[in-house]
């Protein structure tokens, strides 16, 4: 039988599950994402701090080993919520940098070349497409935020005497909650910008500008109107304030009210969802 004749056979096997179809998008996207050496390098570099943290935790519990290092006096700080707060803050910069490079290259190529109708002519809907593409970033950013930090937490819990892990279980909750907030916010905003402008380079520039310009405008407004509410435009500051709330660390959030910070982050996510709803259609209707 020739290849050609075989090709018209209908597929008679059982179709894969909805979840399996959803995971097709991240699976294919990762192959493309990690083709870029910059992304691979950045992703690898994102583990330097968590690995360092693991080492610190291990050293603190191995006094004999610690005594042989020049850090003997430098590691006197406690492993507490502030320690994990600063770790997450550091990881959030890596998360932003990764988003900057990864996100535009996972959505824009579908939109700019008209591939979206092909996706949506399959048994997946628009929101499954969005979820599939979001998963690309969510899994990637999770791998550098809450997952390694939880490993650090578990190491500390296993090496600490008594029930340190149970006593400080709220830290683990804060790590997961704050990380997921960051991951979802970054993913949604980046995807919305990428869907809106379609050009990966412009999307990157806009995403970067989006982190800098509103902050500047917020500060100018703050100076002019003598209020800190202008800083609500600064999503970075809002995220910092939420992080303060979770871990009790001092981030330069400019005295934003915690509720206002949450509102700013949730509003940004809602706006991003609205933008995706408007832009991710099989075909745009010209009214």
């Amino acid at each position: 039988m020739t290849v050609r004749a075989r090709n018209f056979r209908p597929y008679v096997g059982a179709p894969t599950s909805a979840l399996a179809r959803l995971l097709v998008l991240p699976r294919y996207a990762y192959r493309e994402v990690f083709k870029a050496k910059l992304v691979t390098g950045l992703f690898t570099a994102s583990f330097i701090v968590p690995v360092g943290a693991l080492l610190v935790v291990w050293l603190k519990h191995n006094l004999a080993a610690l005594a042989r290092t020049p850090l003997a006096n430098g590691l006197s700080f406690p492993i507490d919520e502030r320690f994990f707060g600063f770790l997450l803050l550091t990881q959030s910069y890596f998360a932003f940098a990764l988003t900057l490079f990864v996100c535009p290259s996972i959505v824009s190529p579908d939109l700019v070349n008209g591939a979206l109708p092909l996706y949506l002519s399959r048994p997946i809907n628009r929101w499954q497409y969005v979820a599939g593409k979001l998963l690309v970033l969510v899994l990637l950013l999770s791998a550098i935020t809450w997952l390694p930090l939880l490993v650090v937490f578990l190491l500390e819990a296993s090496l600490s005497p008594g029930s340190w892990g149970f006593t400080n279980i709220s830290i683990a909750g804060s790590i997961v909650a704050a990380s997921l907030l960051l991951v979802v916010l970054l993913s949604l905003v980046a995807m919305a910008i990428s869907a809106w402008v379609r050009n990966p380079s412009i999307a990157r520039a806009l995403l970067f500008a989006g982190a800098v310009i509103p902050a500047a405008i917020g500060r100018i407004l703050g100076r002019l109107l003598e209020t800190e509410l202008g800083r609500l435009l600064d999503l970075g500051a809002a995220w910092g304030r939420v992080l303060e709330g979770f871990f009790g660390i001092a981030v330069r959030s400019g005295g934003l009210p915690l509720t206002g910070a949450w509102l700013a982050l949730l509003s940004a996510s809602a706006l991003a969802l609205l933008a995706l709803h408007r832009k991710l259609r099989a075909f745009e209707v010209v009214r």
Partner: protein
Amino acid sequence: MSAFLELSGLSVRLGKRDVLRDLRGTLSGRSIGLLGPNGAGKTTLLHTLLGFFPPSAGSARLAGFDVVRQSRDVRRAVGYMPENDAFIAGISGVRYVAQFAELSGLPPAQALERAHEALFSVGLGEVRYRTLETYSLGMKQLVKLAQAIAHGPRVLFLDEPTNGLDPPGRQRMLRFIQEIRDSGEIRIILSSHLLRDVEECCDEVLILKDGRVAALCNLEAERKANRRLIELETAGGNGSFTDALAGLGCSVAPGIRRRVKVLLPEGVGPRDLYRLASEQGVQLRHLTYQRDSLEEIFLRAMEG
């Protein structure tokens, strides 16, 4: 044959414009052509069947599925080749086809195997590892076809499949569509503004004009009916040939220059005409089947 596409007052409004208006009809052909001038609503009809646009009124059923309520089943059954460019930059032909096959519900190994087969089928086997940006326009049309057939759909939507192809490429594409049709495994809905494409590939045609059904015709039945209508040109004889034809039960319409149009009754074939001509001492210099071409049907529909 059971109804394959049923349109029951289907209307679609996009923005402030009624793009499809009260489409009604039942089609059951193996290969259905959507014909009409640009802007007639052919592509909108395909997109509505795929669930991209919600009907503003009425309903439609495709392969037994309601296109609104069972949209997922429809999309599982369909392979769609869009009119415009639809590719993903940076990935190879085989990964492009395999990805869409997986999204249609095939396991990864099956999807990859079928992607290779589909690309060989359409003649892109040698270039399947090249990235899509390096493909020519004709190759992009073919790779779109490959992704539409790779997952073994029951229905194939082809939107202007010969767009941008040179004549040999167009012939190859049409031949390929005919092969798919003749395989009997896949039903085809082909949208085109090119009469020849539809005529060569389809056995039933829905002609659209300004978003309405202008005509619905069964080309297969027309072709069969046309096989009974023959045009003859004769020479010689004593003029009694037309009477003899009438004696065979034929309806005869004389034309100019000894040409006659003959409508053959059941049981009478061209062989009988040759025999009769021989008996009458008449030379048959020209014998053709009358083709009431799709062009005539289309023009009548447009005038209507």
